[in-house]
């Protein structure tokens, strides 16, 4: 019976700048179905945090309800976590980031949690530009309740029960771009080479970073006729590969001139977009929307970094919040005394 992961690791496991191995970023063993795309996303997040040398205790994982929202248990077992009400993770994330702006927030949601019950909260999270990474594990069905079509199921997709979906699916990436999200990416759970750097870039971004990840449901949505099976997704995949080079790290990989374009993030990290992106401009919102829609019309699934505004102002900056987390403010800072109160009152007269 294997519900425990053995403690043994490879003796030559690489260590990051903090001296941790990737195993130190593991969570509990997954109870999702074997082969679930979500587990692969968990592993990509784990690898991304390891590679970016983020101290596990400086990360907070937030989620709602659903297969996707169970995921945080299965990675970063030594980080903070909050498993909230269905579709209400954005409220919790907003509150948490207001209280402590120094943690790295990773929100995990699904197509039901975001595109159905949570749509109202989701759109406001984007509008407010909360500094967090928001990942949707998008499998186009309600796997936890036996695979009914979700709001992101493609038009004409056949469910496992044989029903054809008569509705057009919500394209969360387009929606996020339209609503003004400052970082929008899309990827595929089976393409870690792209997903890992994308997550690393999203975590380095100082604003709301949205990644829509197609994540096949092996149990209810991995058949022919499904728009989001492993095979169908691979067939439609139009991937724009990228690399992420964190600030402080020297750029070791040599690219031939003209084959890549670099985008520098606010903290000095660089995202390298490869040739396959073919002149794609990540800083043009309208062009991004157009490219995504064009690809969709042609039956291609465009993945990669779709839109980025590296100089965005996030919620904490917009609201001119204290630069330190609330829990590190001293009594004197929180309660500056009656003279200060008087002067504030004077200012309001």
């Amino acid at each position, binding site marked *: *019976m*294997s*519900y*425990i*992961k*053995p*403690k*043994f*690791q*490879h*003796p*030559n*496991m*690489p260590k990051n700048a903090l001296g941790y191995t*990737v*195993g130190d970023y593991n969570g509990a*063993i*997954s109870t999702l*179905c*074997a*082969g*679930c*795309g979500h*587990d*692969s996303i*968990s*592993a990509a997040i784990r690898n991304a945090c390891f590679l970016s040398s983020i101290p596990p205790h400086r990360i907070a994982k937030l989620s709602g309800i659903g297969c996707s929202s169970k995921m945080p248990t299965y990675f970063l077992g030594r980080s903070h976590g909050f498993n909230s009400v269905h579709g209400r993770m954005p409220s919790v994330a907003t509150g948490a980031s207001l209280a402590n702006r120094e943690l790295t927030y990773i929100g995990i949601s699904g197509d039901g949690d975001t595109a159905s019950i949570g749509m109202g909260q989701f759109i406001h999270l984007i509008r407010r530009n909360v500094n967090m990474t928001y990942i949707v594990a998008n499998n186009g069905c309600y796997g936890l309740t036996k695979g009914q079509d979700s709001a992101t199921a493609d038009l004409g997709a056949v469910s496992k029960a044989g029903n054809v979906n008569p509705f057009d699916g919500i394209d969360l990436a387009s929606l996020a771009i339209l609503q003004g999200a400052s970082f929008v990416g899309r990827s595929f*759970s*089976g393409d*870690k080479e792209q997903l890992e750097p994308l997550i690393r870039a999203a975590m380095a971004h100082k604003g709301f970073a949205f990644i829509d990840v197609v994540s*096949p449901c*092996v149990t209810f949505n*991995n058949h022919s006729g499904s728009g989001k099976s*492993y*095979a169908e997704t*691979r067939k439609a995949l139009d991937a724009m590969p990228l690399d992420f080079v964190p600030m402080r790290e020297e750029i070791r990989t040599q690219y031939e001139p003209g084959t890549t374009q670099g985008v520098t993030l606010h903290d000095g990290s660089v995202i390298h977009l490869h040739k396959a992106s073919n002149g794609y401009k990540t800083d043009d919102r309208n062009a991004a929307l157009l490219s995504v829609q064009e690809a969709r019309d042609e039956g291609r699934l465009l993945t990669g970094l779709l839109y980025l505004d590296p100089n965005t102002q996030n919620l904490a900056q917009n609201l001119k919040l204290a630069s330190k987390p609330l829990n590190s403010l001293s009594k004197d800072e929180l309660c500056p005394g009656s003279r200060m109160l008087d002067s504030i009152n004077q200012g309001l007269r």
Partner: protein
Amino acid sequence: MKPTDTQNPEYFHKVVDCQYACPAHTPVPLYIRLIAQQRYSDAYLVNWESNVFPGVLGRTCDRPCEPACRRGRIDEEPVAICRLKRVAADNKEDVTARLPKAGPPNGKKIALIGGGPASLTVARDLAPLGYELHLYEGEAKGGGFMRSQIPSFRLPDSVLDEEVGYVLDMGVVSHFNSYINSMNEMLTKGYDAIFVGCGAPRGRDLPKLKGRKEAAAHIHVGIDWLASVAFDHIESIGKRVIVLGGGNTAMDCCRTARRMGGEDVKVIVRSPFAEMKASPWEKEDAVHEGIPIIDNHVPKEFVVKDGKLVGMHFDRVEAVYKDDDSRELVSTGEEPVFYPCDDVLIAIGQENAFPWIEKDSGIRFTSWGTPILNDDDTLQSTRKEVFFGGDSAFGPKNIITAVAHGHKAAVSIDLFCRGKDLEDRPAPMVNLVSQKMGIHEWSYDNDPVNDAREAVPLVELEAALSDRALEVELGFDASSAFVQAARCLNCDAQTVFTASNCIECDACADICPTSCISFVPPAPEEDLRARLTVPATNLEQDIFVSDPLPTARVLVKDEDVCLHCGLCAERCPTSAWDMQMFLYNTTKATPELVEIP
């Protein structure tokens, strides 16, 4: 790199490191599982079929399996394989009824010269086929160097008698106290084949060292002295004893001397301590009995006063290593050191010696004194009906190697007597069976436990030193044996991959606790090894490469530190991975000797 051919049984055989390292290829994980299930008799018979002397080997084996054990690469220490074998032997029921009997006579007669492990293995393998077997032994009992050189405080006579008896009871005609002194005479006796398993009976001496002749009465060649002790020809030794040499025989000599009246016993060896030939545990055992091991001392002279040995002079040296990895012992230039003693035991190696094989017998020898053999598998000499095995074939090795030679020689002799081609050897018996019982259930204990290796408990030192026949090691009790057996990773539960089922969901690569699995573009082996999640730098361990997958990548699994925990197969949605139990039964003259339910 081409996809791995797992149809070749040698691929999976090599994954079972312990079995692969064992010269006789004993299916180690199988018998360890049986011990954990308290099926000691079955565990014993699995051993007996493959290595003939489980009780002996469970106490004395050189255990090449343990340094090979995969557990040693992920944990502090390997599984206590050798001493678990002893647990099976100690706790088994009467197995005599389950042992094979001599087959109906086939009319062929075979002579076996020497009564040690190699000859006894040949006899055991050939008896069920109906061969008439004649075993010639110079001493009064069978066992060869297992009896003459291994002291009874490590190997009780009763254990040896029992296991030698199992073989002789298969209708072997034994001729004890019959030293053979002419091969030509043997060749005229009408045997269809002759097997020579007479060991490497000549202990090396220091004939030219100053004082050797004058002090001869108190200088003994180690193996001869041990034999004299074993057969009760001598009763005592002086109080102060120097043992020269750094091998396992030296360790046996010094520990025996401690029990024969030696109070101040020292081992003095030329090489540095770390490079001594003795197994680390045998050195530990000697040190535990209060015997200092003095290294980097080269014998210079036996010092004789008034016609009597009073001590020895040694030159102090240090090891100097050269670029070609060779080593030279260079004198430090200090004054020679004097160590007083009453007796000296010389245990500096053994040589092959065949004074009884005539030059005109048609059997030719190398310049090293070993017989020229057809090849390492057939063991056939330049006289086609004469075969060699054990130490007499390639020089001094160990019991388990002698057993392995015995198996090969028995196959050769059988093929030879049936007029078949000796090169065309039967294939090993192989089996591969899925272990899947449910989503999280396997029919083997797949969860690697974290327990550490335990040392075998010993009798009180004082009691041990006062009785030469008292076995020092007590052996594991049943509960310790269970814990130690559970440390085995079950490397024979093979990870079998079917590329056509794989949907490349990455679940196996993500879950693998030791990061053995990677999906990468195909490349030559060297590139592949470098590009894995954790680069595969242990070149002694194979990497498995799958057929190309739909995305044109291949799946690569580094076998090096796979825990055989089955998580890859549990997390695989399409059963592209399966855990399958692999049994490899090495080629023997009689393929199946015992039945394990």
